[in-house]
Each structure stands twice: as C-alpha cells, then as structure tokens.
C-alpha cells in the first residue's frame, strides 16, 4: 500500500516537473548559475529549486502569474540554501562563492558568457538577482515585486551594477 502511494506520488511529481517546471527551466538555470561555481553545486541548486516548487505548489495564488511565482521561489531558494562545513558550522551556500573561487569549474561554450557569469558571481546576492532579472528583460516593477522593494530605486541600482560589471570585465576590479 505504502509503495503504491509512494510510486503514484513519484509519478505525479515527474508529470508536474515536465508540465509546470521544465517550460520555465531557463530562468531557474540562469538564476542557479549566478549562485554556483561548479556543475555539482549547480545541479544541487537546480534540483532543490524544482523540489521546493513541487512542495509549495499548493501555496500558489492565481493573483500572480505562474512564471513570477517560479522566479520568486527560485530566488528565495537560491538565497537560503545551506551548506555544512567540516566543523559543523552552517552557512548559506551562495555566501561561499568568494572572489577567489569564482573560477568556473564548468563552462558554457560561449566564453563571453562565462566571463559575464564570473563577474556576476562577484556581486552581492541581491545584486546577482537584480541583474539576472534585468537581463531577462523584467520591468523595474516586476523586479521590485519579486525582491520586495521599491521600483524607483531599481533603476539606480542596475546602473551601479552595470558599471561594476563593466569594471570587472575590463579587468579593473579583481
């Protein structure tokens, strides 16, 4: 009885993944890449985001669009994934991506994109989210709603982030 219920739920989760998550996997991939610097971590993040979307689906309210809700879950999960260090000290995984560690252990075939991601990973966690959403052509209003802030200040912050990214890409900041 237990295994039948279990396999049914597993099947349901597979269907849900194919129909409700996979069509939006692009943004999940792009966000997860901004918070990880290895293929292994990226896969952990991606799986965790999908798992949390599956587990939270009952909380979805039709007032917002499914895609916006997926952005929110993805970002919130990326911001608060835990990793344990050897001495049992817990920390947020995204916090462990330091400047020294931003060398990609995995890479896209496009070298410019690799360099851009490497630069993005040197930003603060919130700035990584803002620039990713901006590059996904989300409006200031949408970015502000996803992050939970004032849209008036998003434009100024994006300008600042772009200047910093440009400096990093030009090799002026290491």
């Amino acid at each position, binding site marked *: 009885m237990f295994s039948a219920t*279990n396999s049914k*739920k*597993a099947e*349901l*989760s*597979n269907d*849900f993944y194919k129909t409700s998550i*996979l069509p939006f*996997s*692009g943004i999940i991939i*792009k966000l997860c890449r901004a918070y990880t610097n290895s293929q292994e971590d*990226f896969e*952990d993040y*991606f*799986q*965790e985001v999908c*798992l*949390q979307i*599956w*587990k*939270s689906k009952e909380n*979805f*309210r039709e007032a917002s669009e499914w895609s916006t*809700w997926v952005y*929110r*879950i993805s970002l*919130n*999960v990326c*911001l*608060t*994934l*835990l*990793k344990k260090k050897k001495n*049992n*000290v*817990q*920390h*947020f995984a995204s*916090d462990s991506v330091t400047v020294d560690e931003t060398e990609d252990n995995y890479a*896209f*075939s*496009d070298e*410019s*994109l690799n*360099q*851009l991601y490497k630069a993005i990973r040197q930003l*603060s*966690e*919130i700035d990584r*989210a803002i620039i990713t959403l901006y*590059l996904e052509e989300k409006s200031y209003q949408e970015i502000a*709603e*996803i*992050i*939970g*802030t*004032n849209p008036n*200040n*998003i434009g100024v912050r994006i300008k600042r982030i772009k200047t910093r990214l*440009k400096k990093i890409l030009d090799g002026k900041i290491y």
Partner: protein
Amino acid sequence: MEKSIENIWKEGFLKSDALVAPKINNLYNQKSIHIIDKFRRMFKINLIAIIAFSFAFLVVSYFVGIPIAGALFFVTLTALVIINKQLLNGLEKIDKGVSSYQYLKTFNQWIQHQVATNTKFARFMYPFIFMSMILGFWFKDAEGTPLGERLVDEILYGFPDIYLIQGVPLIAIVVILLIAGLLSFFGGRIYRWDLNIVYGRVFKKLDELMADIEELKN
C-alpha cells in the same frame, strides 16, 4: 566593437548548451538541502528524541526509586516538546512564494522568536531539572526513611550545631539555590552560544541580505 552585457547575455544563451536542464527523476523522493527543511528535520528528530528520553527516564526513575525526579523531569520535557511543536508549526507556515524581503523577514522573525522562546525556557528548565533531581534523591526510600533525612542525621552527628530550616541544613539550601541560580544564569546563554557556533554565520547573512533590500526600499 565591445559588446554590451545585454548582448553577451542574449547571444550566449542562444547557444544550444547554455540552457540544458539537469536530468531530474522522482522529485517526490529527493531529500531537501534547504534551510527551512533542515530546521524542520532537526526539530522533528529532537522532539522525538526528547519524548523517547523522557519516557525512558520516567520508567527508569520508578525502578531506581526516584519517581519524583522522573515525574518532574517528564513534566519539564513535555512542556519543552509542546513549546517546540508550536514553533515547528510556525516554521511550516513560511511561504517561499512571496517576495524575497517578505520571505527573509518572516524566516528571520521565526528564528528570533524560537531563539527567544528557547532561551527563556532554558533559564527555567536547567534549574528545574536540577531541583527535581535533588527532590528525587531527597525522598528516595532508604530502608524506610527518606534518603535526605538520613543524610541530615549523618551530618548532625558530625556537626551538631548546624543550623536547620524545616529539617534541612541552611548551608545545603544556600548551595542548592546558588547552583540553581547559576544554571538559570548560564542556561539561556549556553543555548545561544551553542546555536551561534553552528548557525551564527547564517543569522549574520540573513541580516545582511535584509539590510541590502531595505537599502533599496529607502
């Protein structure tokens, strides 16, 4: 000509390898590594362990003749379980589909609430457990007489001038109250200290994330 970051992004993701999703099977049976799920698992394991231990101690205390200690210990740990079960219910209600600020704020409030509640409880729990052990052994049957009374008789034999209050040496009352006071003073601190060693970095990071969003709000 130098490409803008917008163009790097657009052109980079046009390539076929850029958006390949990792293969995921059987989502339902995956184990979460998310902080809320980890807290939830930790709470459940702790609560089950406390319940099992308090029952075991209750039974053992009966057989070793200190049922008062067992009963008081059981009551204290039951209160701890009830309080933490309520905290766990609050954790279940945190919605990850709201804005990041709202989500981080709700989670942070839950952490503050649980730390404050357990710190307060620890201040009472450690002295209470200590007192229950003292009472348990005091009233333990020692050949028809409570062990405490026999002990006082022994002390009076060696120190006949010792001052007693309700049949208990004053010095013993002072020492017991002093230890209970120290346990109360350090109980909450030990709990916070222990939590900070393991989760200190997480709590600091949560504050930083919220401060960053708040800066955008103003």
